């Protein structure tokens, strides 16, 4: 009989009773069991000792997996639609680790380059903190801060979302992981680093020592680990910079013709090029959702406003009158497989439900809780803005030939220094292929990548969504950065047995398991 998996007072192991599934139930994987590290049950205020103890518990789990030659993968909310977090080994469920610290002036390294606006807005969050909780904490009257960007939803953990490249569509900011300036990385069973960029030191070495970590400053190592979907060890905590608190005024314009005005807007991101946005000022956020079935579009435009002291924060999920049920998309997807001719009518019907009221909300309220849904289909292709129109034309033609229950959500992101950031072009247009998960959608995701390839368009794809990456495609898209990322992994995890622990099939299929 094999030895039982070791436990501690706040680390529990449970053998698997059924296959592991991602939140939206589009990925299923047989696995060995789950390790769950818990925050101390009395839920005390976070301090250095709690961080030390939680890290120790995680390293007990890593050691046990290593000794048994079993793989281990840290997961957050399991929000990814790709199999990036899946493992046949042990799942490390980080969802209970929600501690946080305010970084004070005395913690800052003399070389910190953050200006007066950033210095009061640094926070450390443990890996299991939800984006929703980050928003609520930051935007409180006590701290009066905001994230610069986030994904559309808030159910991911901060490390889960950042490790897979979650992005928004903010005109002057990169993806969510560009908030991160320090990473508490557990690199195997007995090493832990407080990793920062050498070019951007933030915390005194004494801060690293206080949480039991070794300070390590290296641009390439940081830029590899910050977006590595669990491949470099376990990211126990991250330190983020934040913005002074602000509000967003959101306007929705729908339906909008897919005409030359819209094409000019997409090609330039200049609001003056479109009659709906002309004269309204600088955009903070722009999303253009093209419905390839009805051949029209929706524009979501947001404008940054100063904070209004009279604004009352309300993050709660609201009940509607009628809408898709929890797994309604799964049923609709099955119907579309039988009757693909119904897809355009469905999307025309769905268009009638768009809420086009102007809203003024905080970022956390705007990108807040969503009605829970299964079988959400979401893939993506990301291209340089200079290739945006050609890409959309090709995808539109592809949809005419191979209808799938998807729309094209165009989002625009500034480049990130992370080595495998898929938002890597001077301005990236991410086309989020969003809709219903079924065989038609999965086939479309694959065909979209093939089509861009055949037309010599350089593209990347979202790591946390359905993607068609292969080693050859990664090399083409990321060039020398793939080698740098692999080298960084070997430096952070020099023992091949440690690298084996933090490997999964997703990495192997993409040539990232070295």
């Amino acid at each position, binding site marked *: 009989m094999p030895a039982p998996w070791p436990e501690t007072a706040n680390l*529990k192991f*449970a053998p698997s009773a059924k296959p*592991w*599934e991602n*939140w939206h139930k589009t990925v299923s994987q047989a696995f060995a069991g*789950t390790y*769950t590290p*818990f*925050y101390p*049950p009395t*839920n*005390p*205020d*976070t*301090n*250095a000792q709690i961080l030390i103890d939680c890290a120790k518990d995680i390293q007990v789990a890593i050691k046990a997996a290593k000794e048994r030659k079993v793989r281990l993968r840290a997961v957050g*909310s*399991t929000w990814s639609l790709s199999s990036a977090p899946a493992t046949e080994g042990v799942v490390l*469920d980080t*969802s*209970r680790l*929600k*501690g*946080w*610290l*305010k970084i*004070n*002036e*005395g*913690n*800052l*390294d*003399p070389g*910190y380059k953050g200006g007066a606006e950033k210095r009061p807005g640094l*926070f450390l969050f443990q890996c*299991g*903190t939800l984006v*929703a*909780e980050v928003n*609520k*904490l930051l935007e409180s009257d006590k701290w009066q801060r905001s994230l610069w960007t986030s994904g559309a939803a808030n*159910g991911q953990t901060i490390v889960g979302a950042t490790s897979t490249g979650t992005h928004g569509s903010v005109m002057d900011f990169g993806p969510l992981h560009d908030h991160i300036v320090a990473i508490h990385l557990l690199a195997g069973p007995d090493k832990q680093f407080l990793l920062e960029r050498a070019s951007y030191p933030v915390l*005194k070495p*004494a*801060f690293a020592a*206080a*949480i039991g970590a070794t300070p390590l400053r290296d641009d390439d190592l940081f830029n590899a680990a910050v977006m590595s979907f669990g491949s470099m060890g376990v990211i126990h905590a991250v330190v983020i910079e934040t913005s002074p608190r602000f509000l967003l005024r959101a306007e929705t314009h729908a339906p909008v013709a897919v005409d030359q005005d819209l094409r000019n807007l997409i090609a330039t991101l200049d609001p003056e090029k479109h009659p709906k946005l002309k004269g309204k000022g600088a955009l903070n956020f722009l999303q253009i959702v093209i419905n390839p079935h009805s051949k029209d579009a929706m524009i979501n435009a947001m404008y940054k406003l100063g904070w209004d002291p009279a604004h009352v924060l309300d*993050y*709660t*999920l609201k009940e509607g009158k009628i809408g898709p*049920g*929890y*797994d309604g998309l799964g*049923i609709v997807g*099955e*119907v579309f497989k*039988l*009757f693909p001719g119904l897809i355009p009518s469905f999307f025309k019907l769905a268009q009638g439900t768009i809420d086009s009221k102007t809203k003024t909300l905080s970022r956390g309220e705007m990108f807040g*809780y969503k009605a*829970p849904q299964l079988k959400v289909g979401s893939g993506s292709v990301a291209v340089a803005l200079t290739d945006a129109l050609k890409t959309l034309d090709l995808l539109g033609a592809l949809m005419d030939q191979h209808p799938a229950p998807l729309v094209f959500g165009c989002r625009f992101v500034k480049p990130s220094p992370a080595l495998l950031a898929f938002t890597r072009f001077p301005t990236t247009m991410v086309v989020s292929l969003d809709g219903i998960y079924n065989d038609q959608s999965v086939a479309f995701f694959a065909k979209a990548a093939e089509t861009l390839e055949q037309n010599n368009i350089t593209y990347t794809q979202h790591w946390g969504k359905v993607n068609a990456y292969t080693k050859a495609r990664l090399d083409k898209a990321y060039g020398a950065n793939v080698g740098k990322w692999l080298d960084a992994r070997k430096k952070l995890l020099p023992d091949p047995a440690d690298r084996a622990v933090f490997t999964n099939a997703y990495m192997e299929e993409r040539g990232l398991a070295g």
Partner: protein
Amino acid sequence: MRKMKHVAACSLLLASAACAQYLVVAAEPRYAGQEKDRSQVSIAGGTAASPPQVVAADCGPGEQLAIVRVTRNFGEGLLAWLTLGLYAPATVHYRCATQPQPGGGEINTGGDA
């Protein structure tokens, strides 16, 4: 082919018609871990149930529930129909809710930057 499609669609419709789903979610959900599934049978219109209640004993210390949904599939619906509701099985799915975010702290590393 067309006929087969219609048969498949009718079967899907029939199967769906027997199915039901009810969902309760916290207003600010803090989902924890994987969804758990338990069977429960309502007997004689709820006069009795087996088990009498589903206990979420596998949630962690201090944890509540984030989401609960009750589903009835075609087979469960058929059983309830055949027994005139005297024996009405369903499946209860739930996810635990983590504890609220704790209070924050600071680390004193001494001096000014």
